[in-house]
């Protein structure tokens, strides 16, 4: 089985993945950007919630980085890195969080509930698992239209894996034999709930067989493994293999959202190997293998900080939406708008 072959691939002996540095930069950008968003939230400058992917950057970036034009990406809560890798501009994110009327959601939706279907990045709804069959439908239609070489990738947490929508979506993807990659991140908590109240199987990747998927596992704290495993799954999907399930293991290194102090996370679990910080590990490897020196890293950090500051400053200067100017219309067929008195 693929999962045994790929589990435990050693990081240090191999030459780094060709996308390693590119991926690392996006991870670092994500970390710096999300820290900025969190501080804006603490300062009362963001309404609603802020949900970050701290600890999950290696998995997420690997989800976006192999996708091409024509592919479908349906990211979820902790996928800032993947979204950036897929090409989402930082300004879109800043505008959405800060409520600019110029953002892709124009103030109608916020935070992580954003997307741009025209570029292939779907806008998630909250209901977990609901995006999986939507991706299947996109892929089915692309095949019907005669498009070639495309895949769809979507993500889910170990908690979201337990919804009926996920089950139905996974099954229908296999029945339709569409080129889907489902990357499930087991970060060991779904909000406050630990895994023993989410599922009772030994490893979620074991479900792959039951659905007719090919399954593989990755240490989500190890960027090399994430790139290798998810990259290979994407390649297999493109080659017409059955749908792919990748299960990555991490710890959520933040609250569920920034409102949450995560005091329920036990000390024991914080000492587990999967609790390592993928960004720190990647930085260490970069220095060890001399892909960059400290000065180079510092320069990268400074560049990113400037990009982040610019995106935030731009969004902050933009106007908020105004109710009296809003087009209160939820259907595109104007003549069919119900004029309710």
């Amino acid at each position: 089985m693929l999962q045994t072959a790929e589990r435990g691939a050693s990081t240090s002996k191999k030459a780094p993945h060709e996308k390693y540095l590119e991926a690392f930069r996006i991870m670092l950008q994500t970390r710096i950007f999300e820290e900025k968003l969190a501080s804006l939230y603490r300062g009362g400058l963001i309404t609603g919630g802020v949900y970050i992917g701290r600890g999950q950057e290696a998995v997420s970036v690997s989800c976006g980085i192999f996708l091409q034009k024509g592919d479908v990406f349906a990211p979820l809560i902790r996928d800032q890195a993947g979204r950036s890798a897929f090409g989402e501009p930082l300004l879109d994110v800043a505008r959405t969080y800060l409520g600019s009327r110029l953002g892709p959601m124009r103030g109608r939706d916020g935070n992580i509930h954003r997307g741009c279907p025209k570029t292939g990045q779907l806008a998630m709804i909250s209901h977990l698992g609901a995006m999986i069959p939507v991706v299947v439908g996109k892929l089915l239609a692309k095949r019907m239209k005669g498009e070639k070489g495309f895949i769809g990738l979507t993500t889910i947490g170990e908690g979201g894996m337990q919804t009926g929508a996920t089950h139905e979506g996974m099954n229908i993807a296999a029945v339709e034999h569409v080129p889907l990659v489902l990357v499930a991140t087991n970060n060991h908590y779904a909000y406050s709930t630990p895994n023993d109240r989410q599922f009772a199987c030994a490893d979620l990747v074991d479900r792959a067989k039951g659905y007719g998927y090919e399954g593989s596992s990755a240490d989500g704290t190890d960027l090399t493994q994430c790139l290798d495993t998810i990259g290979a799954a994407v390649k297999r999907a493109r080659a017409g293999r059955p749908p792919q399930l990748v299960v990555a293991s991490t710890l959520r290194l933040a609250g569920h959202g920034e409102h949450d102090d995560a005091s329920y996370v036990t000390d024991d679990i914080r000492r587990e190997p999967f609790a390592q910080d993928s960004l720190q590990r990647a930085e260490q490897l970069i220095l060890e293998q001399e892909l960059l020196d400290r000065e180079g890293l510092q320069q990268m950090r400074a560049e990113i900080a400037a990009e982040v500051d610019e995106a935030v400053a731009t969004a902050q200067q933009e106007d908020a939406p105004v109710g009296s100017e809003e087009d209160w219309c939820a259907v595109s067929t104007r003549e069919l708008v119900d004029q309710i008195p």
Partner: protein
Amino acid sequence: MSVTYLEAIREAQTYLLREDKRVFIYGQDIAGKFGGAFKATKGLAEQFPGRVLNTPISEDAMVGTAIGAAMEGMRPIVEMQFADFSSIALNQILNNAGTQYWRTQVPCPITVRLPSGGTKGSGPFHSQSMEGLYSHYPGLVVVTPATVEDAYTMLIDAVAIDDPVIYCEHKYLYYHLKADALPTEKLPIGKARVVRPGRDLSIVTNSAMVHEALAVAQQFSADGIEIEVVDLRSVKPLDTGTVLASVARTGRLLCVGEAFPWGGVTAEVIARVASEGFHLLDAAPARINAKDTPIPYHPNLWSEHRPNAKTIAAKARQVLAE
């Protein structure tokens, strides 16, 4: 001592777990020290071991499990993390719980708690008011407590009722409403309450909108216009008698609801008054609801999407001028 609306919900559940061995609570993130996304069950898992249980993210199966347990004689309370996620469990609620008694004569005493309604910045999927949708289907009792006292007594009553009860608790009221103490008296489920007497116009409403209506009534009173405010409390059954009696006093009716505008509670109230109390009306009955779009995230948009004191007052003036 003072009690918030949220604390009243927690106290009611404490009482129920203490007094009734058949009661257990089933929901996401409700156990442990965490005690729920809104802390409605904080401390209860420790106090009542094995009876406050975290579930997987599986709303449909949560309700299905509760239905099975209820048929075995238990009194489960299901906490949805947000009302909006109960859409996942519609099949179990509407088709299994709602039809069980009618089909088999075996009652289905489950209580489903829905943290409902809008708050700033919550967006399309964490803000919904679903009482109208649930009321449309047969077989369910649907309540929308608007006060600390009702939050407490109606939850206790909901669990005692032998039928499925959809208990819509408003998230905005969680922290904004305080009472001096838990109530010692109650009005039963199925009865509406006149929360402010008046003679010029009846505003019939429910849940958080009761408080918007009261603010408007207060404002009009300064100009010598007395608005009567009726809190429906329970949406199904709907207390038509209390509504008609109010309209008989005022001759004018304005219905206010936070839910989407097509159909729903306000339409139902107007339909009943128009068909059974047409002769009582001095003006066409009016209603005001949220707009017919998903609930916007941005506070500027959200505050215009739902009825507010300003828009309610404008509508009230229209009805009064007729």
